C-alpha cells in the first residue's frame, strides 16, 4: 500500500513534466500540422538556463527560495520564448509553403544545432545545482514503508495545475485564443478575415516554448542535474504522450503525459525498471490500434 501511494505520487510528478512538454508538441501540430522535433531541445536549453540563473542568483546573494524560483521562472520563460520564436522564424517560416517533409527535416536540423550549440558553449559535463527545496513530508507509514512527498513534487504539481488553468483560459476566453483556434481550423480563411497568421503562429511557438521552460525549471529543481543531451529522451517521451492523448488536442497531451508517467512509475516499481519503455510503447500501440487518432484526438476529416 505504502509503495503504491508513493509510486502514484512519483508518477503524477513525472507525468506533469511530460504533459507540460507534450503541450508544446500538440499546439504546434494543431496550428501548422508539423512535428516540431526541436521542441525537446528547447526544453533542454531552458533547463540549462535555469541552472545558470540559479547559480547566478545565489551568487548575487538571493537566499530566499520562493523569490529565487519566481525570478528564475520569469527570466527563463522570457528567454526560452525568444528561442521558440527564433526557431520558428529561422527554421520553419521560410518553409511554410513547401512540401510537408521540408520543415520536418529542418526541425531535426534545428534539434541537432541546439544540442551542439549548448555542448560547445556550455561544455559536455553535467550541470548540477544544489538541492533548492530539500526535505519532504512524511505522509504515513504502512508495513515499514514510509511514504514521502517531497516539497519539489508538491511544487511541480501545483505549478502545472495553475498553468493549465491559466492556459485553458487563454485559449478559450481571450482574443488571441480565438485567433489561434481559427488558424488551426483554416489558415487561408483566417488570413482573409484580417488576422495576422504568421504572428499567431509565432506566438504559438513562443507559448509552447514557455511551457517547456516551466518544465525545464521544474526538472532542474527536482532532479538537480541537467546536461545538453536531456532533450532527446524527454522529447521522445513527451511526443509519445502527445500522440497517445491525440495529437492536436490540448487536454489529450496532458492526459497522455500523466498516463505515461503512471505506467513508467508503476511498471518500474512492481515489475522491472528494465522494460518500462517497452510497456509504454506497447500501450501506445494498443491505443493507436483501437483509436488511431489517440485518446482525445478527433479524426482528421477531409474537407470538401
Amino acid at each position, binding site marked *: 500500500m505504502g509503495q503504491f501511494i508513493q509510486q502514484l505520487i512519483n508518477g503524477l510528478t513525472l507525468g506533469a513534466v511530460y504533459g507540460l512538454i507534450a503541450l508544446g508538441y500538440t499546439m504546434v501540430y494543431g496550428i501548422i500540422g508539423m512535428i516540431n522535433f526541436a521542441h525537446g531541445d528547447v526544453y533542454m536549453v531552458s533547463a540549462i538556463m535555469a541552472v545558470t540563473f540559479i547559480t547566478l542568483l545565489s551568487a548575487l546573494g538571493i537566499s530566499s527560495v520562493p523569490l529565487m524560483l519566481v525570478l528564475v521562472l520569469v527570466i527563463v520563460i522570457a528567454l526560452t520564448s525568444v528561442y521558440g520564436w527564433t526557431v520558428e522564424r529561422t527554421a520553419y517560416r521560410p518553409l511554410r509553403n513547401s512540401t510537408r517533409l521540408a520543415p520536418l527535416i529542418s526541425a531535426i536540423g534545428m534539434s541537432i544545432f541546439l544540442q551542439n550549440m549548448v555542448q560547445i558553449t556550455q561544455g559536455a559535463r*553535467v550541470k*548540477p545545482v544544489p538541492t533548492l527545496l530539500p526535505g519532504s513530508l512524511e505522509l504515513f507509514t504502512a508495513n515499514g514503508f514510509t511514504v*514521502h512527498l*517531497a516539497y519539489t513534487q508538491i511544487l511541480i504539481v501545483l505549478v502545472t495545475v495553475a498553468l493549465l488553468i491559466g492556459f485553458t483560459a487563454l485559449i478559450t476566453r481571450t482574443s488571441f485564443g480565438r485567433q489561434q483556434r481559427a488558424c488551426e481550423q483554416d489558415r487561408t480563411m483566417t488570413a482573409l478575415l484580417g488576422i495576422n497568421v504568421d504572428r499567431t503562429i509565432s506566438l504559438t511557438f513562443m507559448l509552447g516554448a514557455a511551457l517547456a521552460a516551466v518544465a525545464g525549471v521544474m526538472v532542474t529543481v527536482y532532479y*538537480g542535474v541537467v546536461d545538453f543531451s536531456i532533450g532527446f529522451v524527454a522529447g521522445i517521451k513527451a511526443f509519445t504522450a502527445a500522440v497517445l492523448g491525440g495529437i492536436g488536442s490540448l487536454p489529450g497531451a496532458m492526459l497522455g503525459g500523466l498516463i505515461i508517467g503512471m505506467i513508467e*512509475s508503476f511498471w*518500474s516499481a512492481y515489475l522491472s*525498471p*528494465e522494460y518500462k519503455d517497452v510497456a509504454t510503447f506497447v500501450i501506445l500501440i494498443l491505443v493507436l490500434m483501437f483509436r488511431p487518432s489517440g485518446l482525445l484526438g478527433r479524426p482528421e476529416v477531409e474537407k470538401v
Partner: protein
Amino acid sequence: MKTAMKKLLPVAASLVTLISASAFADYEVAIAGPMTGEYASAGEQIRKGAEMAIADINAKGGVLGQKLKLEIGDDACDPKQAVSVANAMVNKHIVFMHGHWCSSSTIPASEIYNEAQIPMATVSTNPKVTERGLKNIFRIMGRDDQQGEIGGKFLASKFANKKIAVVDDKSAYGKGLADEIAEGMGSKKPVLRESITAGEKDYSGLVSKLKAAGVEVMAYGGYHTEVALILRQAQQAGLKLQVLGGDTLSNNEIVGASGGNADAVMFTFAPDSRKNPEAADVVKRFRDAKVEPDGYVLYAYAAFQLFQQAATQAKTVKYTDLQKALAGGTFNTVVGKLSFDAKGDLKSPGFVVYQWKGNQYDVLK
C-alpha cells in the same frame, strides 16, 4: 635573372619535397572515446591526457625522429558510431590507437583495428575485450572480473548484515561488472537484481523498489551520472543508500551531481597513480595547466608512453614488430610498470576500494 631562377629551382623543388616528405612521415596516432554525449567528461580526460603526452613526446624529438600527430575520434559510447570511427581511423593510416573507452564500443571497433593491423591500448574493462584472441589489443587497466571480485568480496565482508541489491545499466560494461560483483559476493546473496536504462532522469521507481525491499547497499554496474541521480532521489524518498561501483565512479562530476550525497559512494579503481613518485613531475604539469589528472587522464598519457617506448625498442612502427615489442616488453609509465600476458591483459593489475569524501576520493581502509 633567368639563370638565378634556374639555379634556385631545384633547391626550391627539393625544399618542397622535403617539407611534404616530413609532413607525410609524421606518425598519426589516435584516441577514440565519448567526446560528446552523456559520458563526454571521460572523453575530455582522455583528450587532455593524450594531448599532454603527445606534446611531451614531440618536445623530446618525437618517436624514431618523427613527430606524432593526434587524431581524435568521437564514438559517443555508441557501438555503431565506434565502428565508423574505427574505419575512418584506418583510412587515416594511424599507427597506434588509445581507446575506445566504453567496452561496448571497444569490442566492435577492435575487430576493425585488428584487420587493419593497428595496435591499440584500451582502458575498457569488460573481460570480452581481450578474450577474443585479438593480438593487437593491450589493456592498460584491470578487468571487470578482477574488480568485480574485489568489490563483491568487500561488500560481503563489510556489509554482512545488510541487505544488498545488485543493479546495472544494461551496457556491456555495466552488466558485466554487476554480474562479477554478484559472483564475488559468494554466499551472500543479493536481495534484488535489477537493470535500469541509462540516460534517463527518473529512477524513483527503482528507489521505491529498493526501499520496499529494505536495501541499504547497492552494488552498481554502470556510469556515474545514473548513480548521482539515484542517490538524490533516494535522499528525497528518505532512503539511506550506500553504493559500490567500478572504475567509472571515479569521475568527479559525481560530487556536484549527487547533491551532497557522494560520500555514500565507494568504487574499485586501480591504485591512484597521482601518488606514484615517477608521475610526480607529470602530475605537477597537469595541475599547472589547470587539469586535475584524475580518472583516465594519466592512463591516456601512459598509453602514448607505451607506444613511444615500444616503437623505440622495435625501431619501427610496422605492426608485426611493434606488436611483438608491446607483447614482450616491460614499460615504465606514469601509471607504473606495464607488461602484458598472452591475452594482452596486464600482468599485475591492482584494484583498491576507494570512497568519496568531499570532492576527493581516497583509499577506504
